[in-house]
């Protein structure tokens, strides 16, 4: 090959190399601008992460006047480089509590920052000692996939669901309904159920519908602005594929009925034959996601709002149909006022 032809031959190669080089050079490294691991840097990182990703700013501004910029101005003077880690944690924990959200947590090695006024300011309305009186000894009740159940002496079925941390097996749910099918009514006790998996809550709720119904609506943030949200999309509650409950049901709630348990109540409240008895639920209608601060602390925050079928947020709780507190006298007598109220309602409905 003649060397005189070399420039001609290399022309397309040169063009390709130039294109490659320009593609590489015009695009830069994609990195995230993270504040330094200083006291101020961690304060900034926490404030900014929530500012961009937390989903209830506008809702809470309307509910109780939350102003996240004002919160920053108020807490910023409390941060100095001379403070200890624990002091910084206290400041950041207090700042997260301004959101009044049980799904906002800051996890450090020595503590978990959490907001608890949604249950601490109200009666407990649940006692595991009273629960033992109704369920009896271990051999008196059955347990399937985390559900404890038995038939009470007035032929009312009682199911205690303490958590939605793991899903239920179809076979387990079928067996529970089969065992209680002769009862006149059913109590599903989700008091002090702090939530878990939404899919588990939907699975249990599916026992009480015979056709698909709109369970609620869900959306998510589409950008860092406080009002950058997708259009809420409906999601359905599908009927359970095996035995389903066809008689009246009472759902027992208290202020610690939270997150997925709150969603369970939201799915069923208002449906025919369903009565919610007890106290207002704790709320928690935002699916939480996680992020980290430069110092390594984990931050959890509500990210995806869930609306009921009327497009209302239940972030601050759901009111029961029948409001009942356990009275001091009933505590002393060993009687659970909420269970007794539900039993009376179900017996009346059966007559």
């Amino acid at each position, binding site marked *: 090959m003649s060397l005189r032809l070399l420039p001609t031959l290399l022309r397309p190669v040169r063009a390709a190399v130039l294109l490659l080089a320009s593609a590489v050079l015009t695009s830069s490294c*994609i990195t995230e601008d993270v504040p330094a691991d200083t006291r101020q840097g961690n304060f900034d990182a926490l404030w900014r992460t929530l500012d961009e990703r937390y989903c209830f700013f506008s809702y809470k501004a309307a509910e109780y006047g939350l102003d996240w910029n004002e919160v920053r101005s108020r807490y910023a003077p409390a941060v100095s480089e001379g403070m200890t880690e624990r002091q910084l944690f206290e400041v950041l924990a207090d700042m997260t509590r301004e959101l009044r959200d049980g799904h906002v947590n800051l996890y450090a090695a020595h503590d978990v920052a959490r907001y608890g006024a949604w249950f601490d300011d109200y009666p407990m309305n649940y006692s595991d000692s009273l629960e033992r009186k109704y369920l009896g000894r271990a051999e008196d009740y059955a347990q399937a996939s985390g559900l404890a159940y038995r038939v009470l002496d007035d032929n009312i079925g009682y199911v205690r669901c303490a958590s939605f941390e793991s899903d239920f097996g179809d076979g387990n749910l079928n067996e529970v309904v089969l065992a209680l099918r002769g009862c006149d009514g059913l109590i599903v006790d989700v008091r002090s159920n702090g939530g878990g998996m939404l899919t588990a809550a939907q699975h249990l709720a599916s026992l009480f519908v015979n056709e698909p119904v709109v369970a609620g609506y869900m959306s998510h943030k*589409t950008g860092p602005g406080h009002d950058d949200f997708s259009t809420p999309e409906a999601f359905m509650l599908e009927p359970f594929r095996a035995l389903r409950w066809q008689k009246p049901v009472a759902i027992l709630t208290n202020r610690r009925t939270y997150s997925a348990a709150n969603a369970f109540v939201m799915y069923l409240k208002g449906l025919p034959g369903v009565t919610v008895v007890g106290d207002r639920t704790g709320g928690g209608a935002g699916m939480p996601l996680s992020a980290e601060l430069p110092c390594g602390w984990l931050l959890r925050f509500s990210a995806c709002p869930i609306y009921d079928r009327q497009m209302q947020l239940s972030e601050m709780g759901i009111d029961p149909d029948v409001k009942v507190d356990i009275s001091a006298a009933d505590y002393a007598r060993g009687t659970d006022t909420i269970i007794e109220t539900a039993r009376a309602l179900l017996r009346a409905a059966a007559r």
Partner: protein
Amino acid sequence: MRHVLLFLVACCAAAGRGQTPAAPCASSAPTEHQLLFGAGRVNVLDTYLSPLEYAGPVLGVVHRSERLARWGRGRVTVTGLVAGRAAYAHSPTDDGKAWDGELTAAFGWHRNWHPLPGLRLGVGGLAELSTGFTYNLRNGNNPAQGRLGADVALSAIAAYDFSLRGRPFSARMQMDVPLTGAQFTPNYGQSYYEIFSLGHYDRNVRWTHPLNAPSARLLATLTVPLGRARLSLGYWADIRQSELNHLKRHAWSHQFVVGYVRRLRLCP
């Protein structure tokens, strides 16, 4: 690590022996296979999971094949590449840990020129498919990020065969830059529960180009004779980046690679 590399070198030397002799079917063009094992470091960022960059050791494997196309009058080569890597990375303070993995398959053609004896320059295109994940061990509802993408990449090859003391050596460099494609991504604050349990999709497949997904792969090797085998040593950089739906991601992987080259002929 030194023993692992020595072991790999020994294995590669053994595997690279005994190339198929050319004589019985000299008319058919040989296919060059290169298998490389890599070890290095990776730096991973995925703001869907954490704003912090995770870093750690990475292990990888690349298989590359190249042969003359049946068309193109001997100027066009067909290239195939399959690469995988897995990494265990940790956050700057070591509080967070994550597994990261990526699998890429690419196939394409190069138009080649031989401007000087022994020197080959090639330019072409690749169609690439890639999938991967990052699994953060401490997150709750957003523990993992899945990746799936397809793109068309511009690819350039420079290869130089030369002799030293009568022994054949070969230096080769290939660079691939994705030009356009499509990639799966959740939306900014969207949960996987919405996507996979509820079937709520929202801009989950995005068009990619060098401005929102500037990525590149560089594979540079020197193949040296070792007994009857041909041992390859080199460097593999895999730079994958994207900024889609306000979510930033990068995985910068740099690996030292060792392996072997075999030339095989398919005889009728």
